[in-house]
């Protein structure tokens, strides 16, 4: 167990290092002189030289990279050229929004996806399965941003139940917060729910025909126990894998969802940084997102070993 985790941790760190190199090199490869971007109004050669000097832009790129990582490790991600404020602060402000949005979407995807997947597998060949399959296929085929617009049309314009835009912190007004977060969470969670549903259904169909389920039935266990304790427990390994692979899409989706619903989260920060050529912010955001993604994947692997003793105990097949 420990050995397995250490291996995974080492792999994650290598990937994280490569990511940081790619991000750093990528930003440096951007067209335009970063000094020029930072200079703003003051563009005299002397001012530019001063900026180059103070930001160490004249140094070797490897030295620059080392310095950047050194600062990043202490929580200093540089200064936004757009706002003049520390990038770390902007990220810290945006993080709760995106985290809440992602958590709600994930909750929705897991509850609805796994629930519908179980129903589709257990009610095989019945209308319930057909219905669940159709909804899942539709969920996979509808682009999230369009779903967002349709939901806004339906539930914020035609039938104003929910709000279409803006963010109110949960701490300030929980009810208003949820009123504004429900639609974005549905938009972000729908695609994931569809994928989770399909995988759950497939894995459950596999498990339900397995020998150990026959054993469980031969023991006289209730249907609920056979499905929940035996079939589902085994299916979860597959579902968790897929969930881990799909979390990247959740991050991508958050960017779009925040754009549609005007939520001041990570995604909006990213897009704004691109359009205002705010490279320091872009670099920080991309680095943080990728680090989060790598961390999530590591957690997913840990979760596997909790679910499946064969991984945890490193036993044979």
């Amino acid at each position, binding site marked *: 167990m420990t050995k397995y985790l250490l291996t995974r941790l080492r792999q994650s760190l290598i990937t994280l290092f490569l990511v940081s190199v790619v991000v750093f090199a990528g930003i440096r490869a951007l067209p335009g002189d970063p000094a020029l971007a930072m200079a703003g109004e003051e563009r005299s050669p002397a001012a530019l030289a001063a900026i180059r000097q103070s930001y160490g832009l004249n140094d070797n790129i490897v030295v620059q990279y080392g310095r950047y990582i050194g600062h990043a490790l202490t929580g200093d991600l540089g200064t936004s050229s757009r706002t003049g404020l520390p990038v770390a602060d902007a990220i810290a402000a945006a993080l709760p929004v995106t985290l809440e949005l992602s958590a709600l979407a994930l909750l929705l995807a897991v509850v609805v996806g796994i629930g519908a997947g179980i129903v589709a597998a257990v009610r095989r060949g019945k209308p319930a399965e057909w219905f669940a399959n159709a909804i899942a296929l539709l969920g996979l085929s509808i682009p999230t941003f369009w779903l967002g617009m349709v939901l806004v049309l339906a539930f914020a314009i035609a039938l104003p139940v929910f709000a279409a835009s803006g963010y109110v912190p949960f701490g300030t007004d929980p009810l208003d917060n949820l009123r504004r977060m429900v639609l974005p969470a549905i938009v972000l969670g729908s695609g994931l729910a569809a994928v989770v549903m399909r995988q759950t259904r497939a894995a459950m169909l596999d498990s339900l025909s397995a020998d150990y389920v026959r054993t469980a039935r031969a*023991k006289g266990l209730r249907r609920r126990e056979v499905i929940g304790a035996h079939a589902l427990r*085994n299916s979860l390994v597959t579902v968790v894998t897929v969930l881990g692979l799909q979390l990247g899409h959740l991050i991508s989706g958050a960017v779009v969802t925040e754009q549609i619903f005007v939520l001041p989260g990570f995604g909006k920060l990213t897009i704004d940084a691109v359009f205002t050529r705010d490279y320091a912010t872009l670099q920080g955001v991309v680095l943080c997102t990728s680090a989060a993604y790598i961390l999530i994947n590591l957690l997913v692997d840990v979760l596997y070993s909790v679910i499946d003793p064969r991984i945890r105990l490193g036993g044979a097949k």
Partner: protein
Amino acid sequence: MSPDPVREEPVLSVRDLSVSFRSGERTVHAVDHVSYDLKRGEVLAVVGESGCGKSVTSMAVMGLLPPTATITGSVRLGGRELAGAPDKELQKVRGNDIAMIFQEPMTSLNPVLTIGRQIGEVLRRHQGLNRKQAREKSVELLTLVGIPAPRQRIEEYPHQLSGGMRQRVMIAIAVACDPAVLIADEPTTALDVTVQAGILEVLQSLRERLGTAIVLITHDLGVVADSADRVLVMYAGRAVEQAPVDELFAAPRHPYTRGLLGAVLKPGAHAGGTKRRLPEIPGLVPSLTEQPDACTFAPRCTLADEQCTTRRPGFRAVELTAGADARHKAACWHANTMTKEVVR
């Protein structure tokens, strides 16, 4: 071997059990009017080729067949009718009054649950034990089926156990609630020869200690000769012969049984310990999509005449023993004219 099986009421009584499966347009008749009785502490061996319906019969008795199966006939367990009972009723009976172990010990245990959990589950379900009591009882059961260091084993997962050990765990689960009937579907087929004997010993000792009646489904005529009291021979979904084990081996009354025993009866082949598998009989097993009014074995039978291909033979007592208790039955028009001399 068993304590006077003759006078006792049967614990399990199967009457005219038929099972058919619908698959699209076709209907497959997997089991066709099979009947047998099982008394306390008795071991009934069910033999026949793959696909003859012996496993399907057991699954039907357990009520474990999928909804695509249609079951008719009667299955009485200790006076209670199981055929057609709602699944909720059957759940209370399965694992409690009648239990089953399967051919594949490697896959029959749930890989993500501990051994203790999987044994305890059945105790908590049927006997209402709490977690601690179930745990203690699980340790006892593992000792009973001959698993060393049981306290340690109940914390382990199936993949940490060998195939033989897993099958012992399956037996422990099956006998946990002291069932009246245990169905063992080829319990040793997937195991090494050396491990097989151990498993059969465990089954024998359970029968002696707990008085469990056992339905032993097997390919292996050696196992039949060593463990069974009576034998039921099945062919193409039908019961073709049933007799006490000695009588069946000595004087089979169905040509199919004779074919099966052919190799065994030849001198030299009866050496103890060697494995005796069902020998090849020329011809093909008929398709199960139709139920002909004829003997289904006729196309492969050397004794077949016109009657065999136009009328279905009843499953009735053979003449030699008819007066007694009908302990030897066969479904063959020639059963009574067949003498020992016919056997080569």
